[in-house]
């Protein structure tokens, strides 16, 4: 029984990592109805920027906010450079651009930083807490806690501020917003900046656990997709809960489901995506999906 609880807790721990990246995916979706295939790579690159700053002697607590600002600016820059020219193009065009971006950023990070894994500092203790013989590391708890804070921040921003309201309006009703004088394109850029910054938080939080290298996010992006889809792709709360559920499910299926085993965990992620999309396309927390026609 203790083993079972340990599997659940380990699942929650890894689920927190999925959730933190899924949050960034959800933000982009909210901003423009798009899944950004480059989200993981952008987060990885931002983490490398933080690494470079810290490596040059900057304190963690200064490097962290600077990286967020840089990531925010980088997100806006990317939107202006490569998304804006095609922002009204069909989904296909946008998806391909983000795939191109993913390839580009991954290769570029490898070119600059190399492929040797690096350790990344964490503000949380490397030890783990003992809950009646079940263990969870403080770093994993930190990821979940920070994801919760980001979730709160995103919620407040989107639901309680004028900027958030305008952003949502621009995403859901671009024509009407334009008529009301909203700078729709800049709202989308703001969405990219925010998602990029949230992704950077995710990268900085998970890098101490996953080790920083250009392919760091490739092992978790599919799970993050599964998390976002499960939670309902436009719901930030859904992304976090979806992440935790995916983490636990994948862990338990790998451990106990006959025929799955540890080496087919990713297939469980795929199965979750397909099952949710077919049975309940709006996920657990989503409303009827908006469609770009």
């Amino acid at each position, binding site marked *: 029984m203790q083993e079972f609880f340990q599997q659940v807790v*380990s699942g929650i721990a*890894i689920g927190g990592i999925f959730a933190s990246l899924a949050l960034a995916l959800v933000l982009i979706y909210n901003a423009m109805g798009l899944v950004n295939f480059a989200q993981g790579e952008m987060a990885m690159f931002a983490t490398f920027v933080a690494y470079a700053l810290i490596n040059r002697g900057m304190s963690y607590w200064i490097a962290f906010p600077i990286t967020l600002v840089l990531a925010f600016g980088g997100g806006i820059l990317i939107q202006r450079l490569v998304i804006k020219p095609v922002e009204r193009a069909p989904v296909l065009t946008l998806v391909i651009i983000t795939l191109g971006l993913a390839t580009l950023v991954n290769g570029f990070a490898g070119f600059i930083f190399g492929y*040797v894994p690096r350790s990344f500092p964490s503000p949380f203790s490397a030890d*783990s807490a003992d809950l009646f013989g079940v263990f969870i590391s403080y*770093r994993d708890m930190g990821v979940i806690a920070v994801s919760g804070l980001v979730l709160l921040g995103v919620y407040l921003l989107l639901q309680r501020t004028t900027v958030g309201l305008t952003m949502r309006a621009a995403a859901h009703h671009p024509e009407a917003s334009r008529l009301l004088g909203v700078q729709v394109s800049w709202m989308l850029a703001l969405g990219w900046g925010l998602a990029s910054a949230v992704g950077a938080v995710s990268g900085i939080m998970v890098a101490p656990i996953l080790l920083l*290298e250009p392919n760091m996010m490739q092992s978790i992006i599919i799970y993050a997709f599964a998390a976002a889809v499960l939670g309902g792709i436009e719901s930030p709360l859904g992304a976090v809960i979806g992440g935790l559920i995916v983490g636990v499910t994948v862990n338990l299926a790998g451990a106990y489901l006959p025929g799955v085993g540890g080496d087919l965990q990713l297939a469980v992620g795929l199965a979750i995506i397909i099952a949710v999309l077919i049975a309940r396309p709006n996920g657990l927390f989503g409303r009827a999906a908006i469609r770009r026609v």
Partner: protein
Amino acid sequence: MGRIAPRLAAVAVFMVTLAACGGGTGTTSQTDVGITSNSILLGNTIAQSGPAAAYGTIANAELAYFTYINSQGGVNGRKINFKILDDAYNPAQTVPLTKQLVEQDQVFAMFSGLGTQAQTSVRDYLNSKKVPQLFVATGATTWGKDFASNQWTMSWQPPYQGESHIYAKDVLAKHSSAKIGVLYQNDDYGQDYLKGLTDGLGAKASMIVAKESYDVTAANTAAQLTKLKAAGVDTLFLFSTPGFTIKSLVIVTLLHWQPTIYLNSVSNPQVYMGLAAKAGAANQNVTSVSYLKDPTDSQWAGDDGMKLYKTVIANCSKCDPNDGFNIYGVAVAYTMVDVLKQAGSTLTRANVMKIASSQLNETNPFLLPGVKLTTTSSDHFPIMQEQVITWTGTGWKLQGTLIDERGTIK
């Protein structure tokens, strides 16, 4: 270099034989495709992008050694040109790139191609073309074992199974009542290690109470390690690639678990142990084996081989001297140069292959003292000696003496 002298006789005999067969054109030298009067062209495919890009630095380190040798006058007056192509660890790319190197660039030999699947995909082709596929950078057992049917293909590093035999011996000697659990990568690499361990334990193979596999696409190995711990395992084997080994060492500590740990040589460079420690791993009771000198190990600071390595690797601006893969690259390049030198004026593919596969008798300055590369007409595993090492918290400590597993892989 005194050992070259006895070889000369063999080379001379070989030359006479070739000449007698009508292959000889002159009395002074014989060459093949890829050799000119002042150059030797070698080709290589390796992952320099994609999921296994971390290995890509091996080729750069090899190039650094060839550059060093060229600056010293080359091999018998010939400079080595080394063409590296990136196959992204995808066999479907290895095939055309290898064909390009052989048919278009006209390389003399393929050297140190990386990846078991990738190198398997071109083995038949290179053998049918009689192009040496020398010192492939994989420890799969098939390279040495199936030499009879692929006489143009050879590996260099100790086979994974041989390494596992050493672990089996160590466990039997030190922890004879151990409950062994194995975490392995679900590919040839992990499976070879597992097979070697099972074979090595022989009648005591039932000591393995649990084994769990993971896929390279996994996010971490928590589920598997939790199961192994719950199964009562007190001796844990990690047959995994460096990234997963580091994560696994951390998870073991987070589970407040203190098994005796054996980890494979691919993952044991000090850099990785340091990364694991920084990420929270206790790294207690860790045993591994080694055959290469670890560049970060201070005990080699004054060692001539290590000094040479540092000189060589300075030729590669993007190589991290502390990366264990780089000393591997330099060491295997050393053997290649040695073979080419021995071939002397009979620089033919057949002669080079003959020397590499049956006449190797080399002391390599980048390997642990005492390790000898040997091949004979019936043994095509060049390196079969390794030494048990244990982790002290700051570095590896050599234990006992070199263990020779020659002849144990049938």
